[in-house]
């Protein structure tokens, strides 16, 4: 993440985002987030509000959304806290985009388990479509980032695209997903392995086999 940086604040940027304000729908969510904390602790809602702001920016720009400085200033004023504290939070968490991104933010996991299971091929597939790490494609469709483990190692390799994970990938399977997305469809999220639901062992259970037919657990539902 060493190449993360804040989009420079130019007059144009101020012009475009200076009057940012939550739409009623997001405002309602923001209020609810603030209400979760005791009076005077409204600052605690900063992470939620940054997320909402990023999503609203996404809606307005038809991208995944990002956080221009004027928007961070808006959030700071909204929560009555110093802007620098908001910027600290936004720069700390990589889920907040500090520069504009494309319609789809493709985050390829390159950590060891995914790598062993073929993340190189996944990466190649992305690159073949003109994606470049840390860049957005000309058509504004794709932004590519390489990330560390997303906690889906049991169905490695995986990518995260906006709010969904696509797992058990191969080059072709990813191509199908990306094509669908580009066509405006919503491909099935999660594992792409036929016959697999989530991260259960491929080819049937290898442990707790007795549980396949009958429930021996103390809980009613297992």
């Amino acid at each position, binding site marked *: *993440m060493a190449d*993360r940086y*804040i989009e420079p604040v130019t007059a144009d940027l101020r012009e475009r985002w200076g009057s940012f304000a939550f739409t009623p729908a997001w405002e309602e969510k923001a209020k609810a987030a603030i209400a979760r904390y005791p009076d005077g602790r409204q600052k605690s809602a900063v992470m939620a509000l940054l997320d909402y702001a990023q999503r609203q920016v996404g809606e307005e720009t038809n991208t995944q959304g990002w956080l221009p400085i004027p928007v961070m200033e808006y959030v700071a004023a909204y929560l009555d806290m110093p*802007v*620098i504290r908001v910027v600290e939070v936004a720069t*700390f968490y990589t889920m907040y985009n500090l520069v504009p991104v494309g319609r789809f933010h493709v985050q390829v996991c390159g950590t060891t388990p995914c790598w062993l299971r073929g993340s190189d091929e996944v990466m190649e597939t992305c690159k073949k479509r003109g994606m470049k790490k840390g860049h957005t494609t000309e058509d504004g469709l794709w932004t590519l980032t390489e990330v560390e483990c997303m906690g889906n190692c049991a169905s490695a390799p995986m990518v995260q695209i906006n709010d969904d994970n696509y797992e058990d990938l191969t080059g072709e399977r990813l191509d199908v997903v990306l094509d669908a997305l580009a066509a405006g469809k919503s491909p099935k999220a999660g594992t792409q392995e036929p016959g697999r639901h989530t991260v259960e062992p491929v080819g049937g259970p290898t442990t707790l086999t007795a549980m396949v037919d009958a429930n021996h657990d103390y809980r009613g539902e297992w």
Partner: protein
Amino acid sequence: MPTVKVDGQEIEVPAGATVLQACELAGKEIPRFCYHERLSIAGNCRMCLVEVKPGPPKPQASCALPATEGQEIRTDSEMVKKAREGVMEFLLINHPLDCPICDQGGECDLQDQSMAYGRGATRYDENKRAVTEKYMGPLIKTTMTRCIHCTRCVRFSEEIAGVDEIGALYRGENMQITTYLEHAAKHELSANVIDLCPVGALTSRPYAFEARPWELKKTLGIDVMDAMGANIRIDSRGREVLRALPRVNDDVNEEWLSDKSRYAVDGLTRRRLDKVWIRKPKKNGQGKLEAATWDEAFKKIKAVKPGKDIAAVYGDLLDCETMFAAKALLGAMGSTLIEGRQTGMTYDTSNLAAVNFNTTLAEIENADAVLIVGSQIRHEAPLLNVRLRKAVKRGAKVFIVGPEWETTYPATFLGNDLGVLNSLSADVTDAFGKAERPAIIVGGAALGRGALGKALALAKEWNVVREGWNGFNSLHFSASRMGGLMLGLAQKGGMADLVAAKPKVLLALGADEVDFTQFPDALKVFIGHHGDKGAHAADIILPAAAYTEKAGTYVNIEGRVQRSEKAVFAPGDAREDWTILRALADALGVKVGFDSFDQLRAAMFANTPALANEGLADLGGELPAGGGDASGIIEAYPVADFYLTNAICRASPTMQRCSAELLHGEPLAEAAE
């Protein structure tokens, strides 16, 4: 009071102490970077690791661990030694080998601690991290690659200064310290982060590459840029003062110093008066100044035959000795016409307790309700503002009468009209009714408008003087004020009395703020160190010494008598002020009763015994009753430009630059380095 064992030595530590503090009490040195007595605990550098039993079998950060009963702490075990070596090695992984070109060299915590606790060689041969430069304003020079992420600077600006502008962006190895959008740090205490930074990431910009610390002569001084009497260390080389640093004094400045006190010193070598000058007569308008000798100047003064028609006005930066010498000279001539409130302000000075900061600076932190009348505290006494912020953090309510300014704590402004004091709203009276330690602070803007009487009446009404607490305070801005008042150097009618007396000779002792056109017929003799407003109006200029060039006694706003030592010699023909006045006495044929500095001091102590002992002077007396109604509008505070309040600041390029950039928003012309 838990009892702990440090390296086998049993000691009792105060409740709430940390293991680090316990070790210090036991006389053990614990290396540290992020921990600082006056800041909150961060616990992020890990340099303070020690072995503690009971506890997990690993070294623990002593700064963040509370000392508890029966703990066994070891600071000298093999584990601790290895832990320190390890942390040191990690810190140095990304720290550049900059020492030869780094200004912190010789006074760098990292350098010292790596000598004392490091392993001596590195095993790291990967690339080091590099961080882009950050701009932090005209005073702070940054080299962020050297930063070790201790966050002291962040905590200082958030907690002490109360201006959230420095932050730590990004995370882990990529963490970067910066000001918001790299704006200049804009508050009066910004440069303190330079002292706090344990490495050379934040260094002094004006002092960059000037000297190494071991080349400097260190002199203990008292600051005169405001009336706080901050304790400073004057670092000089040869005849030049290179920098002023704060000394620790918990009663006065803790360990902070305002930017002005720190950086005005480069004004000490500029626009100096180093020769005697006499103005040649001219038919209409001002004649030209011509260099002359002391003899000629004295002869000229004598020729006027002032007799008792001599008056003196003293400036803001003067020491008590100079003022006393002037008093003695005038006394010998038969005059008592001395005044220091140069702009014509008047208020009753008959009872010193009424014009003193009685609560004391250390105690004001404990106030629980504060009424500030006519003071822009941040500009008039930045260090007092730090104390008020602490009080507010402890729950104090602050109300301010006067034009609004940007406070660093929540405060309620009651408007510009002093008349509000006559009928205060319920929330103010409620707060003061309930307060256990109420305080009133009357600033210059109110003193000058006759609000002292009303403030005293309020003090009586609210009972601000009670068992163990005196909450009545006047706040002055001039370093010379309290000393002058203790020496009895004030006229009932202020400057107007001097004007009315039409003196033949007017001695202006470093007085630059006087309207000299009020004295068209007087021979104006300026005795001072800078060619500023006073010198421009003068007929005769006698060059004198600045505060770093003479030993002197100063009394701060709370009546604390402090002595300053002489760091360097005054330039050229300039002399210490008292010797000039002594020589003038000879020229005028009168006796002042002292021939040496020691005799002068002895005479001064005999005259005003309170000045003889360092520390808080007993100003005696109950507060006067006061009374009357306050009226008048405060349009503006006396300090128009924080960075340019006296002749030394005005001569200082650094202060000029601060004023231009920080107050007037001019972009910084980056100097070629």
